[in-house]
């Protein structure tokens, strides 16, 4: 049987959006996210919550290999969001990444256009843990000075890829990192270094 969506669609979607908004507005400060969803494996509750809150028929969604291999996941997302699924990362408004270690290069996703940089892909990564106060050094809009943020697993050559992404500003992809019970934002405006 199809797993249910949000128990309280209005307030759960608002709460999820608000957590994501606050996380993107303050990179390096993870927000709590407890959506209470039981999506089909390997989709995580946090990935499912972001998808249910933010995607609809206007937003092509790209699934990574781990998610695409599970037909239940596609059925769940199609039913609850109505979002079309795409095989082409460059066409995706949102990309759900269950296995960040095998995420395709960020350059394969849509970077937006100079006139419309908002048409870029938002990547949602399912990490196992997000920890503030250690790891990568972040600076930029939303951050007073610098902050530190660690997440694992992350895509290969993550810092180098983010530097290339940042260099093309205002073009570039935006990242939402999730872990059990938490969400953190890495918008394209954030400068990331190993420190």
């Amino acid at each position: 049987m199809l797993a249910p969506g949000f128990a309280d669609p209005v307030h759960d979607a608002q709460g999820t959006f608000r957590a994501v908004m606050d996380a993107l507005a303050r990179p390096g400060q993870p927000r709590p996210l407890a959506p209470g969803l039981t999506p089909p494996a390997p989709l995580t509750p946090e990935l499912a919550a972001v998808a249910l809150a933010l995607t609809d028929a206007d937003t092509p969604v790209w699934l990574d290999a781990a998610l695409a291999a599970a037909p239940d996941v596609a059925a769940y997302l199609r039913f609850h969001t109505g979002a079309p699924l795409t095989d082409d990362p460059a066409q995706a408004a949102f990309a759900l990444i269950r296995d960040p270690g095998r995420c395709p290069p960020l350059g394969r996703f849509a970077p937006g256009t100079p006139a419309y940089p908002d048409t870029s892909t938002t990547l949602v990564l399912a990490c196992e843990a997000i920890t503030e106060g250690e790891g990568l050094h972040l600076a930029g809009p939303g951050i007073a000075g610098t902050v530190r943020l660690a997440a694992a697993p992350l895509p290969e050559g993550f810092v180098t890829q983010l530097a290339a992404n940042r260099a093309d500003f205002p073009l570039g992809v935006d990242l939402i990192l999730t872990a059990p019970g938490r969400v953190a934002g890495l918008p394209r405006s954030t400068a990331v270094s190993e420190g």
Partner: protein
Amino acid sequence: MIRRAILKAIAVPGYQVPFASREMPMPYGWGTGGVQVTAAILGRSDVLKVIDQGADDTTNAVSIRRFFARTSGVATTTRTREATIIQTRHRIPETPLAEGQTLVYQVPIPEPLRFLEPRETETRQLHALAEYGAMHVKLYEDISRHGHIATTYAYPVEVAGRYVMDPSPTPKFDNPKMDDCPALQLFGAGRERRIYAVPPYTRVRSLDFEDHPFRVQEFTQPCALCGASGHYLDEVVTDDAGGRMYVCSDTDICETRVEEAGR
């Protein structure tokens, strides 16, 4: 969809994200953009404050505050410190904003270059190329005509070193408050269908010249009610014989100061 636009606006500070503006139970020009942004972010635990030219008690502010209290059941306040979301028309509160607060601006014309270049296709290219020479020429013409930059409201700013943005028709007095502000600032233009944002702790620089640096208005007298200096003052005509007084445009801080003085 409005929520997605807000996320992209935060990711590209100062860039105007197009969005499909909805019909609102109020006419364009009364804050339909601000109302849509507020409605998109508002949740059960929020406390909402609405100001119109700094005042909590004018028609527009009272109507919008009541609208949200009635439709969403959210708590409302007139105290800047207690609010988590402040929807504003053309002022930034005098009380410094804090982390965890969100300021939602009602914006009539979001495009700072619109009066210089009426074609949207052209202004979009100018933003894409970061070609803002025309704006500097406009400010320079002010100087050549008046001896100083005569723009006093909707004074253009550069956000995070990239996009030139219209801060909405706030007096330029408020521009310095936008710089490095701990609160998130969201801008909604309903009729023009644009949303843009300034994340917290973001550099917001008012455009100027080395020999004509940006300066805010100064008032020669303190507020007639609370005695504050350094606040933005409104001129109130008190009779038909030329009588007038100057009072704080921010009613919350003025009332708070009067109450505290009376104690």
